[in-house]
Structures are given as C-alpha cells and as structure tokens.
C-alpha cells in the first residue's frame, strides 16, 4: 500500500551479524545476513525478512533466526536483546539509527533457549518473592477502592509500566546467571505495591522479602539499570526508597521483639 509514510525499496542492503546457538548445551557462532533496505525498518522487520529468505551472505541456507517478540511497540517486553553491544528492545531499534554491521546477541544474564531467545523465568519468580500483588478479598463487587491523589497516581503509574523485559538485569554488574540477586525490576514493583493504599497493609512482607541473600543489599549502586530502562522508570529512586525501608525494618528488628511489633502496621 502506498502510504504517506512511504516505504521506498532501494538497492541498498543492511548487514547483520547474528548469534546462532541451536541448543543451550552446544557452542554458538555468528551468521551474517544481508537484508534489503527499507525506510522505517527496524531490527524486527529485518528478522522477519530473514524468515522469508533464510540464506546467509555467503549463500548458505540456514534455519530462520529464533527470537522472542509479540507486540512490536515496546509494551510486551519480549524482544530485549543486545544490539551492537547494548541491551534494548529490538522493535524500537530503527535501522536508520544503527551502525552497520548490526550485531545481535542474546542477553547474557539469562540462560539461552536458542539463538536470541532467553529464559527470563527468574524475573517472574522475583515477582513472587516480593509478593507483587494487592491481596484482594475476592472478585465480587465490593465497591470502589480507596481514593488516591493525582500525585500518587502519577508516581504509581510510571512504576506500573514495567514490562519485565530484563534490560535492567542485563545491564547490572551485580546480576549473573549463577547468583540470586533479585534485580531492580522487582525492587521497584515492591515499591509500587507498598505505595498502593491497600497493598500498604502488607508492606512489611515485601520489605522482608528484600532482606537476606539475593536481596536489596546486593545492589552495587552502579546505576546502569536506570540508564537502560526502555520505559524510563526511576529504578534507582525505587531502590533508594526500598533500601531505607529495609534499614528501618532491620533497626526495628533489633530493638523490638516480634510480639511487641503486633499492632504496628509495618514500617511507617
């Protein structure tokens, strides 16, 4: 279709170097592909082009590249990968703004499934650890929830746009495949639910979940997370806020026995 945002095909081509790994247990290698240039193209549209013609630059027929993607508008969180050495969402990586050859490699902080697809289960497990939910009594109609100020809503809204893409873990020097560090995304979610007027009632549980091995004290304050977050979530602020809560709770633990804490609504 001839659109006002025309997609002109030219003779130019784009060169990709893409990491191939058939199996997590097998060694990987790079394949090079040339894809016809189209204005407005992004990394995903080029990977789709390769699916329709999976032939390398030197004419070898290969299996199509395996990668994760769904929405293609930076809201599902699927397509995070390293593009020219920097973690970002492939759907919004416009070809016109990338240096060639474009090198695609999987994120390194998660086990590879195949090629560019990785297993981000640890992120969802982290959401369980911090009890990232509002424990409602039931799904029957109990009328509206508590009132909220526009100011609180605007803070919580931004926190709630986290797409669990894993960029913050990928960029974090403290996270590795062999350790348990919970990472910025889940810490920020704990902050979100502790801000919610109902979620607040269980705030101590979430703060406790951030204590101990793999908890918030493993953060090395490198501040890489906030720089790579595609949703520009103030992750370092979230970490600072939750760090303070953890410290307050730790002090309280020292001075009060558990039974004396009864009746308190958690760290205030």
């Amino acid at each position: 279709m001839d659109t006002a945002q025309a997609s002109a095909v030219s003779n130019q081509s784009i060169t990709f170097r893409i990491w191939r790994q058939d199996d997590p247990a097998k060694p990987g290698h790079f394949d090079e592909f040339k894809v016809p240039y189209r204005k407005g193209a992004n990394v995903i549209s080029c990977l789709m082009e390769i699916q329709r013609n999976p032939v390398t630059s030197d004419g070898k027929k290969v299996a199509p590249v395996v990668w994760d993607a769904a929405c293609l508008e930076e809201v599902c969180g699927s397509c995070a990968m390293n593009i020219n050495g920097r973690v970002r969402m492939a759907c919004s990586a416009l070809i016109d703004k990338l240096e060639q050859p474009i090198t695609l490699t999987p994120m390194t902080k998660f086990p590879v499934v195949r090629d560019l697809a990785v297993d981000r289960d640890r992120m969802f497990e982290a959401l369980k650890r911090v009890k990232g939910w509002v424990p409602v009594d039931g799904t029957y109609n109990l009328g509206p929830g508590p009132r909220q100020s526009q100011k609180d809503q605007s803070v919580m809204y931004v926190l709630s746009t986290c797409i669990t893409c894993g960029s913050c873990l990928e960029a974090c020097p403290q996270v590795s495949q062999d350790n348990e560090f919970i990472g910025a995304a889940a810490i920020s979610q704990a902050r979100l639910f502790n801000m919610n007027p109902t979620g607040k009632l269980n705030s101590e549980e979430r703060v406790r979940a951030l204590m101990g091995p793999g908890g918030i004290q493993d953060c090395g304050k490198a501040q890489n997370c906030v720089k790579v977050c595609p949703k520009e979530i103030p992750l370092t602020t979230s970490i600072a806020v939750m760090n303070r809560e953890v410290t307050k709770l730790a002090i309280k633990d020292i001075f009060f026995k558990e039974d004396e804490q009864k009746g308190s609504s958690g760290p205030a």
Partner: protein
Amino acid sequence: MAAAARFTVVGGGLAGLMTTIKLAEAGHQVDVLSLVPVKRSHSVCAQGGINGAVNTKGEGDHPDIHVKDTLRGGDFLAEQTSVKGMCYAAPGIIYLLDRMGVTFNRTPEGLLDFRRFGGTLHNRTAFAGATTGQQLLYALDEQVRRYEAEGKVTKYEYWEWLGTVKDDAGRVIGSVAMDLRTMEIRTFPAEAVCLATGGPGIVFGRSTNSIINTGTAAGRAFMEGAIYANGEFIQVHPTSIPGEDKLRLMSESVRGEGGRVWVPRKKGDVRSPRDIPESERWYFLEEKYPKYKNLVPRDVATREIFMVCRDLGMGIGGRDGVYLDVTHIPAKTLDAKIKGVMEIYEKFVGDDPRHTPMVIFPGMHYSMGGLYVTFESDAKTNMPVDGSPKNQSTNIPGLYAAGEADYAFHGGNRLGANSLLSCIYSGMIGGPAMANFAKSQSTSAAAMPEKFFQSAKAYWADRFATIKKMAGPENPYQLARELGDVMTENCTVVRYNDRLKKTVEKIRELKDRWNRVNVLDTGEVANRALSYTNQVWNMLELGEVIATSALLRDESRGAHYKPEFSLPEPKSKDPTQDPEWMALWRKRHEKWAKTTMARYASEGPQISYEPIATPVLDPEPRWYA
C-alpha cells in the same frame, strides 16, 4: 466431579486470566497454556480504556444507555443478552480492577476519572494513561501469580494448544499441546477447556495485533467442529501508523482527549501542516457529523478517511494518510493522559506529535466475529443466568470461548473501550459456567479411558513428524505474507464480490501450495518454524471463513461495507422521516439481521444464518449524522 476439579484455560490475556481467577477462586485447579509468558499477552496493547456507566460526571449516564450505544454501534448484530449483562456488570468490574491496584487516572477529588470514546456522547471510559490494557493485564497477572504461589494455578508458558481430546460422545475431555522449547507433545486432561486465544489479526499480515495473534487455535477449533460466527466483521481502526512490520495503533483516546482529523482543503497541498491556516484545513469528520464529530464509531471514521484518500484523492500529498492533530492541546495535558501513544509515535516515526500533526491511516485491528458461543437468558432481566453452564459455551460440549476469540458482544462493529470490558466479563461468567458444566457431567474427564488421550496425542505426534519432513519449495512465512496481502487488499474497508471470489480462490491456491512447503528448520529445540508451518494451515482455514462469509453477505452493515449492496442516502436528515427509505431498510434488515454461522467441511466453509433474538432493544436505523 470431585470438589476441586482440573480445568484448562488457553491464552493468558484478560479473558483467559479472568476465567482462571474465577475457577481458582472457586477452589479448582487450573492449567493455563500460553504461547508467551502471560504478562506479554496481546491485551497489553489496548490503550484507551475500559467502558462502564459509572456516571460520576453528572451526565445522567446509565448501563441502559451503554447497552443502547453498544447494540446500535454493532448495528444490531450483537448477542443482546450478553451485551446487557456486560454493561450492567461494567461499573463493578472497574471497581474490582481499582481494588486490584490498577493505576487509573484520578479526578482532583481522588475518584476515578472517565473520558469520552467513540460512539457515545458520555464520559464513560476509565483509563490508566494510554496504556490501560497493560495495566489491566498486569493486575490480573498479579492475582494469578498469587494463586500460582498458592498452588492453585499451573502456568505452561511457551506452550501451544494444538487441539482437543474428545470422548466417543464428542465431549471435550482435554487438550493436546506442545512445549515450544523442548517440542514435547503431551495431553492435558480437563473437565472443560476455554479458548481465550484472542483475534486473528495476523491472518491480515500486518495489523495492530501482536505477531502471536494468528488465530491458529480458533482455526483449529473450527476444523474440529466449532461454529465460527460473523467472521466477516473485521474492525479496521481509523488511526494507525503504517509500518514495515506492523500497523501501530494510535488510540481512539487521542480523539477522546480532543484530537482532530483533517486534510488540506487544497488537493496535493505540499506545505508543512503547521503552515496551513485553519481556514484551509478540512475537518471532514466534524463537518459531516456535527454531533459526534471526531468520535463517530470506528467503522464510520475509517470509511470516511479511506474515501477521502482513495476516492477523492485528498490524502496528504495525494497518498494514503490524513492528519491526526493534537498540537492545540497543552503538552502537559497530553503527557498526563495519553503519553503512552505520544511516545510510540515519537519512537517509531521520529516526529513529536505534541508539535507536529501525526499522519495516520486505517489499519486492521479487531475481529468482532469469532467462535460461536451461547448464553442462557434470564427471562426477567434478559441477562445471562448466573453460573449457567451454557454461558460462553461453544457448540462442542466442554469447549468454551472468551474474549476476542468469541463472537458475541460487538456485532457488526465494536465500540472503543468495550473490548477490555468484554474480555473480563466473558471470563467472569465463563469460569463459573465451566465449573457448573463439570458438575453436571456424570463422569469426570480425569476418569476417562486413556485411549482417548493416547490417540489424540498420536495424531499430533504424527502430524508434526510429517511436517518436519516437508522439504518442498514453498516458504511458510512467504505463504502467510501472501495471505495477509490478499486479505488486507480485498477483505477490509471496502468489499466487492468479484474481489472476494478471487480472494477465496487465492486462499485455495495457498492451501495447495502449503502441501509443498519447506519446514526450514529441523532443530530439536525451540523449532518455531515447525510450529508456525502448522499454524499457517489454520490461518488459511480462518482466512477462507472470513472471505467466504464476506462474499455471501450482500449488504452493508457495521464494518462490512459493500458499495454494490448499500442502501441509498435517505431523503430526509433523519432517516425515520423518509418512509420509502424506511421500507428499504426494513426489507434489508429482515433479510440480513442474522448471525453468520460457518461450519467446517473439507471442500470449504459451509455458511448458514441464524436469526437474532432482540429482547433488549428493537433494531432501528443506525445513524450518526
């Protein structure tokens, strides 16, 4: 049935998760199968909001007005009982989501804020910025994670549903599915199965849908005997950004917050939009529809934009595209209310829509049609009976459908912000329906002879072994692209019978070529091409249903527009004042106000029509001018 039974829900979007929550809350075990981690389901893409006549704006809104707007918006093709149930449940659903922690926008008093959407004159749409679907999905995802932590829900993410397991009587007693990482195929016994598998956007190649929305599950269910209803009713959203890989949605909330659609009055005007003075801009929607202005229903807005570009050649630069302009609205307001879509435009086009009018064009968006489901109507209220096992049930016993995968709620055209609502509502009534269906069965699916499960599994193991050996010249991704091109060209905004005939022929040709496909990948791990090759066949089946249903419906209604069979313009501004026209309308309505029912046959879909009961609202001419 034991007190706690095991069920399968296919799809982890809003409809699937709500169904899951209802079953888990009642104490049952639920297996959730999803192509992707459920938090990445397509519901995240919904932007504008969710409708509910909460009436906090002093406008006298009421669920009955919501019912009327919805039925009229769908040109009286929607299932009326379920629409009434949905609209009456809507305020409670919004409150529930509020309690779950959805970060809805607020009024200065701290109450939920509501904005306007298309096809209504009331501020009825609750919203969380312009990423409402994302926030709603996350709220349900969090509740399901809580049940998962309690052991009531087991998620099977990166698992693809392949088909049903049936007993000798034809009752569904489970499913067969494939692990998309290890490629293991196994069965999932279940007292009932719900397909909450979303729409078929990828049948049209590029659409506003996520690339996982191939419609494969619905296509397969159709082949197994489920009726597919109203397939021809495809919503083309008026405002999307054309892209190489997809058409990115620009939410209706942009117009709800005051966005205006226009083109230069002078054909082929090459000036920058900001240099074109107000008097030389043609706000064609506002001019033609002074009451609803830019917020006419989507099918109406889409046709107007399409005709301005294609028939009048008035598109920007003579091409497909019109301006969607928010530059008159303060940037601060835009950021507070629709930042999500402003960012999408900025990221993917490169211009800042706060200062430069956006260029948009209609794009395939949603399927009103889907798997045929039933409802048990309460004679007193004309709403679905609470807990009836008939609700959301397909014609196959034990197989349910919910969300965009079902056909019921939107008729010939869906109103904006009604889809999040229908997803959640269908899950709310579908879960209890499944539980009560299980109670009504004398034998539990879990106690059924193993042979049924073994033979179903063997069928799929054989089928994939066969596909894996396919080494012909055809590329499955290329076949899918050709399908998408022909469907978009002939089966979207304007439809002609000769072109629809050619479309059906083309699909038959593609089916033939599918037999000579090359599977491309013989890998043992995460072999996506293998799964996709199977999906392409189901997409072709669904494409044929959609094109055939469109071919046979010789009228214009809602999103289905055939100029050769449209009624003439009435002589009076109010059509009910033109008796001749009203006679024509009545004749047409009597013939065509029916549900299209497609049944599978190997030689092509068999189409019949079912009359629509109208206990809630008598049909009337649909008129917005």
